[in-house]
């Protein structure tokens, strides 16, 4: 290091990517770092790695449908869809946007130097790694990987000889990480806002993280205790969900979905936050109805608490509950609809630039709308009874979680990549990758709606001849989608090493992260924190 370099680092001017002077090696310096940006980047890398594990498992499941039985046995298929679900949901998409982009951008966007509890943040990251490690261990340790489905339904999860205890313990630990992250973010937003950053000037991404933080804090503990009871049931023989010991398996479903439905909002809210950032930037317009979007986020988080029963219409719960939950489910569609209208209204008469992040954002609106509207169909009690056990549900969850949260994650990745790594990716391969992904996605999952409506049961490893065409289209779609993903990731990885240096504000964004160098210095802003004078979406920016 040159002396000039050293003094810059001492003043906190050096990029966060550069190792601070000291004796720590690169690896230790990252792992022990309390810098929210470094933690965010590490989370991102871990998430994307696990994402590929999940993708590979999904591809293998589709491959089985080419000729059921040729590649694997039914037991293996059960294990595959279980592990695919656990990995993609608990390791990738639930922590997903908040831990990666939330960590990196929340403090910058509110004009802070770091989160409220930097060391707790590092602890969350370690806890996440531990939990993920335990889940992975459950795949390789002696015996079979879990085969219960990602929902761990009792009493089967108490009786199956597969490694359920370990997997459940892993998810339990991951829950801690999630709670601590939510707690940290909510506290940060309350106490660390920079000069002039009043509540109604906060960027919308921050608002969604705020709503998500509350859901993380108030829903995850319910999952924790429920999973703990599964482990106690297996290890100690406490039969809370075991009918032979007086327990009620439907109570397991209640408690599980009390968390796992709000968990859908833990995933989708920050994804909506990304879209609410990308669309105003690329439409060159302030977001339409800022306050409506803010209140819609809070409303989704609130009402999302009262709808979990719609996962249980066929479980044998009471008719009263079924009707009540079906009605409540329709209410949650209202704030989601508000958001979609606001995004579209923002585009209206905007000066739209179709760079890669924008393609991802508009395809989010399209895919999320399909997912959301299909959700209304299955949220109505009568159709649900027919659709619940079918591919329809598989199609719905993938349109929401992959088509919604997944594309938003890619939108965020392309939007913020230059800021995070200080490099530009190549635009043409990025768009090409998006196009192939989009085609592949719809080929893969849309036939599942059709097959589901025709009665193809989900989680079956075989199918009758009438579904042959649909299955084949879907299998082919999985390959197209994988090709798209390869192009996207290849392009970004190449950019990481060979990309041109990114300017401070490549897209003309107005929020605070575009008012600091790319990549940001360790202290987030080179000098004083800019003073905020108006709401975060105005031409010419803030500051």
């Amino acid at each position, binding site marked *: 290091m040159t002396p000039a370099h050293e003094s810059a680092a001492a003043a906190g001017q050096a990029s966060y990517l550069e190792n601070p002077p000291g004796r720590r090696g690169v690896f230790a310096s990252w792992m022990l770092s309390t810098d929210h940006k470094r933690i965010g980047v590490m989370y991102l890398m871990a998430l994307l790695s696990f994402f590929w594990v999940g993708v590979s498992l999904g591809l293998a499941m589709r491959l089985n449908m080419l000729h059921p039985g040729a590649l694997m046995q039914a037991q293996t298929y059960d294990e595959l869809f279980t592990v695919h679900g656990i990995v993609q949901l608990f390791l990738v998409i639930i922590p997903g946007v908040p831990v990666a982009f939330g960590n990196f951008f929340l403090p910058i966007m509110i004009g802070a130097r770091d989160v409220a509890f930097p060391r707790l943040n590092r602890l969350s990251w370690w806890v996440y790694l531990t939990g993920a490690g335990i889940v992975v261990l459950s795949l390789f340790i002696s015996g079979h990987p879990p085969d219960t489905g990602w929902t761990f339904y009792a009493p089967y999860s108490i009786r199956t000889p597969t490694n359920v205890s370990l997997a459940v313990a892993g998810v339990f630990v991951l829950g801690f990480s999630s709670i601590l992250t939510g707690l940290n973010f909510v506290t940060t937003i*309350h106490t660390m806002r920079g000069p002039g950053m009043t509540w109604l000037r906060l960027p919308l991404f921050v608002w969604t993280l705020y709503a998500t933080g*509350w859901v993380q804090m*108030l829903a995850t503990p*319910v999952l924790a205790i429920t999973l703990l009871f599964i482990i106690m049931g297996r290890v100690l023989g406490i039969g809370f969900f075991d009918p032979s010991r007086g327990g009620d398996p*439907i*109570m397991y479903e*209640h408690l599980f979905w*009390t968390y796992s439905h709000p968990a859908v909002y833990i995933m989708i809210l920050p994804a909506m936050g990304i879209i609410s950032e990308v669309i105003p930037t690329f439409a060159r317009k302030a977001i339409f109805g800022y306050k409506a979007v803010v209140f819609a986020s809070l409303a989704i988080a609130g009402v999302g*608490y*009262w709808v*979990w*029963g719609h996962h249980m219409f066929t479980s*044998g*719960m*009471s*008719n*009263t*509950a079924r009707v*009540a*939950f079906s009605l409540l489910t329709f209410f949650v569609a209202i704030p989601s609809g508000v958001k979609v209208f606001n995004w579209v209204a923002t585009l209206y008469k905007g000066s739209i630039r179709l760079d890669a992040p924008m393609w991802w954002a508009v395809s989010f609106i399209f895919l999320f709308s399909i997912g959301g509207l299909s959700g209304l169909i299955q949220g109505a009690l009568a159709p649900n009874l027919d659709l619940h056990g079918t591919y329809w549900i598989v199609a719905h969850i993938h349109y929401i979680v992959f088509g919604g949260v997944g594309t938003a994650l890619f939108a965020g990745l392309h939007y913020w990549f230059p800021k995070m790594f200080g490099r530009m990716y190549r635009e043409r391969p990025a768009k090409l990758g998006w196009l192939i992904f989009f085609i592949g996605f719809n080929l893969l999952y849309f036939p599942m709606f059709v097959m589901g409506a025709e009665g193809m049961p989900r989680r079956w490893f075989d199918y009758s001849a009438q579904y042959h065409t649909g299955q084949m289209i879907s299998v082919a779609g999985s390959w197209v989608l994988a090709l798209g993903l390869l192009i996207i990731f290849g392009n970004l990885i190449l950019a990481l090493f060979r990309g041109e240096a990114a300017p401070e504000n490549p897209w003309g964004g107005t929020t605070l992260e575009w008012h600091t160098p790319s990549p940001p210095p360790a202290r987030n802003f080179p000098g004083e924190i800019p003073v905020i004078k108006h709401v975060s979406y105005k031409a010419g920016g803030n500051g």
Partner: protein
Amino acid sequence: MKLEVPEGATGYGILFFIWIALAALLAATIAIALMNVRMAVALNFLIATSMALLNLFYFMDLRHEDRFLKTIIFLALFALTSIIILTYSDVFYRMAG
């Protein structure tokens, strides 16, 4: 800053008085249970809640916290209550299997 009892420090006397109150409530709740009073369970819970409130406002010093913390506790209670009510919409009306 140089007051005898600094701002926010609850006096020992008050804390001891709260302890007496808590102990009295404990005695009351046991007595109610032993005496076979009607609605004993409801009374037990009423007393438990008042003990919890004394704890919250004096030992945990919630009365000196800002309005946000005082309000937001209802959010957590509201979340829990809604979970309980909705679960009971099933439990109360489930047909005997």
